């Protein structure tokens, strides 16, 4: 089916063609936002529009006939880019490229170009159209955005004091920063892809704490927590963490950020402060109790001195009476002096921070026996002992311990005293009577057994209280400080002391002192 080509139609068509060509040319010429350039098949510029002039700043007269590589930077020319693009357009129909180009004044612009091959009817390339768009603004915005993103990324990556970790929506680690490496000890390639629960102690994993935290962050936007966490080397650190849910555009959760801070030092300092405060409170309580009992026991002889003085004054003429009460006055004053001395000794013990050394208890016993030589002889006492260990402690205090226990055994005797001192090693679990330091596993059990008057077992704790006496002052003299002192000495050494007895059958005092120091 061929259309009949009437002369009228041919004329009309030619007119339309010519008109269209003109308008088309005009249209291209007037476009301002695109440089539209016609190149011959070797890349020389044949035509030029307003847009080209606006973008590249050459006027038509200057540029026609020039090679289009004039717009390229020297390095691109050296790399033969213009020719490569032409060849690509020739072979594939078009070439697309983005890159820096040069204006007439030497300034640069970011050009986005498309070179399209133009063919004749026989499909030979007769030239190229080159459309260039100036995307400098867009490029700058994109670059700024990229730089800002990169800066942000580097900022997070290089923060040292916080572990900043990205988790996927199931808690698997997506990235890792220097802070995380520093705090947790893993390198990025060891940890990315692992689940974040790896940082939690076994008991927290069993209690599903990591899952609970993610769940809370999911529900409430974020989850805060403080607790012990585990480093790569198995050591613990006190972490304070914030897990924040990250939302996508449709508000679904796409992951979590997890920021962790290592506050171990602060935690340790806090705990030290707490234990220090607790210790201080205990000491305060002890001091209050001490002040009460001390004032009570010190007031007693003082009151008597005042009473006796008044009685002596009132009965000045009764010589016998006066003699008797002067005697009592003297006893009271001596007792007061003894009490003050013992109290001072006891209070010094509480503050004793002196260095501990190796102390051979055989030597301590020998010296104590020497101190009591006269009394031992007078009482016809026998002291037997097995070989005693060498402990780590305060020589003077251990001397006081031995001295008080042996003098008690001599004092509360019933006939000829027999004192047996034995020692053996026991483990901490074997000591149930009193608390001992958890720092030690093994203790020396040193027993002082006597055949004296003994005591009722119900007083086994009371016997160690300050100023507590089981006997009337007229029966046995003493200050009620000795055994309290022994208890304090055992405790100062990380050990303890216990008492066992039966009235009339003797008493056994057993001190436990650490064996593994």
């Amino acid at each position: 089916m061929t259309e009949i080509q009437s002369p009228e139609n041919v004329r009309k068509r030619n007119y339309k063609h010519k008109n269209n060509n003109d308008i088309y040319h005009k249209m291209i010429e007037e476009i301002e936002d695109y440089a539209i350039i016609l190149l011959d098949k070797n890349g020389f510029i044949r035509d030029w529009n307003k847009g080209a002039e606006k973008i590249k700043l050459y006027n038509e007269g200057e540029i026609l006939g020039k090679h289009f590589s004039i717009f390229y930077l020297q390095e691109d020319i050296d790399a033969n880019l213009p020719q490569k693009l032409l060849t690509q357009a020739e072979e594939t129909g078009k070439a697309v490229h983005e890159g820096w180009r040069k204006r007439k004044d030497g300034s640069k612009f970011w050009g986005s170009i498309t070179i399209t091959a133009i063919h004749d009817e026989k499909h030979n390339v007769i030239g190229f159209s080159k459309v260039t768009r100036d995307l400098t603004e867009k490029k700058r915005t994109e670059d700024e955005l990229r730089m800002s993103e990169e800066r942000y990324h580097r900022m997070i990556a290089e923060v040292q004091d916080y572990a900043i970790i990205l988790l996927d929506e199931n808690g698997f680690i997506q990235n890792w920063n220097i802070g995380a490496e520093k705090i947790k000890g893993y390198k990025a390639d060891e940890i990315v892809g692992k689940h974040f629960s790896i940082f939690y102690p076994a008991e927290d994993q069993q209690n599903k704490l990591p899952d609970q935290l993610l769940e809370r962050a999911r529900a409430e936007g974020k989850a805060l927590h403080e607790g012990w966490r585990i480093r790569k080397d198995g050591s613990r650190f006190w972490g304070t963490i914030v897990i924040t849910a990250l939302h996508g555009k449709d508000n679904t959760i796409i992951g979590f950020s997890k920021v962790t801070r290592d506050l171990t030092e602060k935690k340790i300092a806090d705990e030290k402060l707490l234990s220090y405060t607790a210790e201080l409170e205990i000491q305060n309580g002890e001091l209050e109790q001490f002040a009460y009992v001390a004032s009570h026991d010190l007031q007693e002889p003082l009151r008597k001195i005042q009473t006796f003085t008044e009685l002596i004054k009132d009965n000045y003429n009764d010589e016998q009476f006066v003699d008797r009460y002067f005697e009592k006055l003297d006893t009271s004053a001596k007792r007061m002096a003894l009490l003050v001395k013992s109290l001072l000794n006891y209070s010094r013990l509480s503050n004793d921070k002196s260095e501990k050394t190796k102390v051979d208890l055989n030597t301590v016993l020998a010296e104590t026996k020497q101190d009591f030589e006269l009394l031992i002889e007078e009482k016809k006492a026998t002291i037997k002992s097995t070989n005693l260990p060498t402990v780590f402690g305060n020589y003077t205090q251990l001397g006081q311990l031995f001295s008080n226990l042996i003098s008690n055994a001599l004092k509360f005797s019933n006939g000829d005293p027999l004192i047996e001192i034995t020692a053996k090693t026991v483990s901490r679990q074997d000591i149930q009577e009193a608390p001992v330091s958890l720092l030690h596993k093994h203790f020396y059990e040193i027993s002082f057994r006597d055949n004296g008057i003994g005591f009722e077992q119900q007083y086994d704790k009371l016997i160690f209280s300050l100023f507590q006496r089981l006997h009337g002052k007229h029966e046995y003299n003493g200050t009620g400080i000795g055994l309290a002192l022994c208890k304090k000495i055992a405790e100062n050494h990380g050990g303890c002391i216990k008492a066992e007895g039966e009235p009339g059958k003797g008493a056994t005092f057993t001190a436990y002192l650490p064996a593994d120091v």
Partner: protein
Amino acid sequence: MQCLLVDDDLDDQEVFLMTLEKINKNIKCLTANNGVEALSLLSTQNSFVPDYIFLDVNMPKMNGIECLKNIKNLSHLNDCKIFMYSTTSETSVLEKSKNLGATDFIVKPSSPATLKATLSVILDN
């Protein structure tokens, strides 16, 4: 009139008895050295029903507070007035003895004259 003094301090016992004698020679006063002795005396000698008991607080074997508790369980002593008699008065001990039914708390005076005055007021009532 009958009294019982429970005190482990023999000097204090002596001064107390001496003072009491000065107030009234006819007052019969027994002594016990601690709570255990006092209870044994009160429960074995039914004929001895004191009108006043003076109880020291710090004593070996059984202290004054424990002794007070036990005396209050002895029905034949319901009319007996019990005075705590100690060197010092600590608030907690003071309250305990009050709650357990002690009539009053006397701090041992350092002057025998003051003791005489105090005891006179108690015994006159």
